């Protein structure tokens, strides 16, 4: 997928002034965190499970080569086929080659962020194959030619009236006078429109939430059942996934599954958790004849052993996104690529380069909610700081910003000077603002005062109070 992360500042302005988006985000802002909180409060062991989940993922990443090879041998033993892909191009080529080998015309798809990452839909279309998204949210945004704005709720930026307009514009064979007011009606319409596509598809592509090394199995977690129809009905099932989805055993997967739904939607368990191992068995009445795994690296392996390794623990629950004050203000499209919110702010520069995505690690108030709700305890603010550091050393931030920062650092390293400056500045500001108590504008601080007033300092500084108390 083509990134527009460089345009983050313009994207956020567009997001903030988009009324539909702001209304839709308002629903998300309260819904997701509340449901997650209720679900985690019901499970007294939740925090212990987070600790175990973290150690399972760390253990797997430390031995990732071993588990990938074990996984591969079990995929092959169960009759499946492995396709390793270093890049998006290799992943797309592998999918195309499989589709061509069976003469596929229509491909149904369950939701896969890896498929979004490699831009699979555009690639297939350019090669004469019709991809049909079947997750309701993905289907809606495919009709609208938009990228997803959230990793588990791709159409979260839309209001139902927009969905109704899209359906009217695209489902032209249906009665134009039909009522499309309630989500129920749109849901039924999508079900009716998509059912024949499920049955007609030659190939079904799903993602994977986890890959299990002990058996060569892939696991998908869905609520709609679209992933299961996608992988059961066509002759060929392709699992589109990436190397960090690995876990050693089913017991390990069970622990992570207990964390996933509760962190994501606040459900005890999603409607459908499906473990797939290889193609149809002799005597089976249904299921695909071929089972393929396209396993993508795309820069992930390079993150191992370094300061960004922890992001590879991510199980894509979206809790960090749902709790982020920046995401819930500007929406997912502002981030300009597949992965929004705090996990995206860390992962996107890792995968497409900090030059492309330098703004994203700055899209944070460092409130720390993301880390506090992460089911595998990824230190997201710390890693965003690492990226800011790199942005600074690579001189990607504006010059005036860098000069200001070095000046400040020079003073801050000299406490006597710093305190003297701070004392003078706070007294001067306190005096200047003694009547109003705040400033509407300040030189050098218009980034702050353009959108809010700056309060005038009152009384004495913390440092002088502290010094007095210690006497």
């Amino acid at each position: 997928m083509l990134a527009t992360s460089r345009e983050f500042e313009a994207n956020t302005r567009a997001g903030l002034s988009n009324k539909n988006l702001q209304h839709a985000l308002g629903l998300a802002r309260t819904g997701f965190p509340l449901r997650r909180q209720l679900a985690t409060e019901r499970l007294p062991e939740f925090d212990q499970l987070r600790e175990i989940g973290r150690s399972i993922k760390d253990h797997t990443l430390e031995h990732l080569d071993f588990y990938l090879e074990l996984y591969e041998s079990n995929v092959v033993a169960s009759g499946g086929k492995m396709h390793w892909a270093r890049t998006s191009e290799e992943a797309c080529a592998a999918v195309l080659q499989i589709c061509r080998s069976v003469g596929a015309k229509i491909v149904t798809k369950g939701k896969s962020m890896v498929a979004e990452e490699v831009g699979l839909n555009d690639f297939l279309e350019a090669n004469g194959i019709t991809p049909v998204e079947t997750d309701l949210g993905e289907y809606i945004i495919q009709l609208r030619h938009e990228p997803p704005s959230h990793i588990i709720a791709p159409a979260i930026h839309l209001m139902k009236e927009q969905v109704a307009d899209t359906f009217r514009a695209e489902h032209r064979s249906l009665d134009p006078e039909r009522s499309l007011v309630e989500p129920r009606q749109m849901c039924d319409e999508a079900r009716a429109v998509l059912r024949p596509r499920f049955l007609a598809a030659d190939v079904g592509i799903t993602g994977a939430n986890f890959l299990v090394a002990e058996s060569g199995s892939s696991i998908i977690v869905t609520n709609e059942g679209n992933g299961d129809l996608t992988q059961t009905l066509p002759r060929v099932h392709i699992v589109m996934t990436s190397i960090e989805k690995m876990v050693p055993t089913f017991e390990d997967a069970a622990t992570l599954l207990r964390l996933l739904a509760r962190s994501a939607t606040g459900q005890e368990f999603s409607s459908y958790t499906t473990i797939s191992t290889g193609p149809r068995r002799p005597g089976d009445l249904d299921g695909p004849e071929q089972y393929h795994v396209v396993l993508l690296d795309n820069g992930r392996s390079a993150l191992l052993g370094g300061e960004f390794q922890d992001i590879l623990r991510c199980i894509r629950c979206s809790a960090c996104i749902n709790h982020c004050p920046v995401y819930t203000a500007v929406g997912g499209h502002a981030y300009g690529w597949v992965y929004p919110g705090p996990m995206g702010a860390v992962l996107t520069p890792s995968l497409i380069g900090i030059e492309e995505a330098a703004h994203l690690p700055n899209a944070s108030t460092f409130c720390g909610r993301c880390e506090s709700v992460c089911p595998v305890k990824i230190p997201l603010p710390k890693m965003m700081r690492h990226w800011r550091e790199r942005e600074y050393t690579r001189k990607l931030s504006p010059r005036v910003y860098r000069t200001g920062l070095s000046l400040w650092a020079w003073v801050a390293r000299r406490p006597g000077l710093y305190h003297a400056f701070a004392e003078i500045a706070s007294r001067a500001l306190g005096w200047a603002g003694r009547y109003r108590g705040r400033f509407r504008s300040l030189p050098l601080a218009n980034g702050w005062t353009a959108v809010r007033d700056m309060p005038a300092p009152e009384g004495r500084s913390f440092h002088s109070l502290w010094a007095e108390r210690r006497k």
Partner: protein
Amino acid sequence: MSEARERILEGIRSALKRGLLDPNIQAQLRARVAAHGRNLIPTRATALDHAGRVDLFIALAEEVQATVARVGSLAEIPEAVARYLAAENLPAELVVAPDPNMDAVPWEVRPLLRIRHGRATAEDRISLTPCHAAIAETGTLMLISGRQTPTTLNFLPDTHIVIVRRDQVVASYEDGLDRLRSDNASDKLPRVINFITGPSRTADIEQHIELGAHGPRRLHIVLLEDTRTTGSAEDDEEHNPSAQ
């Protein structure tokens, strides 16, 4: 593509600043996998006796809009199914898993129920299947694919009816998987294991929860109190299911 494979594995090793793992460590990792060591399992179901687990399973399944009927024996299933279909205003036409254990259900006592055995097609509106286990922890059904239990039955029809034998209720997902491992002498997993928790749903439009997105709109559980008869079994190789 084998070049990609080698490069990715090499890349992982060089990022981790090591070569191939030491054989001793590899042996330890293999032992870790073979041991199937359990991680922490929440006590909400494990702390209960079996009757408590059955009650918890039902309560949690109903919480996610599954419906539950209890029957005393296999002989009562046709009556319970007919009553459910009538109450929901559904047609009396079922596709039933071609599982020999389901043959013991005396459908003939309800001659108006039209029964077909096989996989589901696009026209089928109601399916009836056994299950492999029922997980008390979250009110989850565990179904496995096989020649007697085609997966399409679980997803294509609008209404899915599942027979759960009381002794199939277990505490955790791990318990369900262990049952599968001990049942499976061949050590080969079924192609698909479906954990099903309530009917299909979506919240993709304004976070409004709607049932029946693509899978079944209704999930009805018939709990069989009599445990003398069995549910799903893959061991009966003699049985030749009627395809379609």
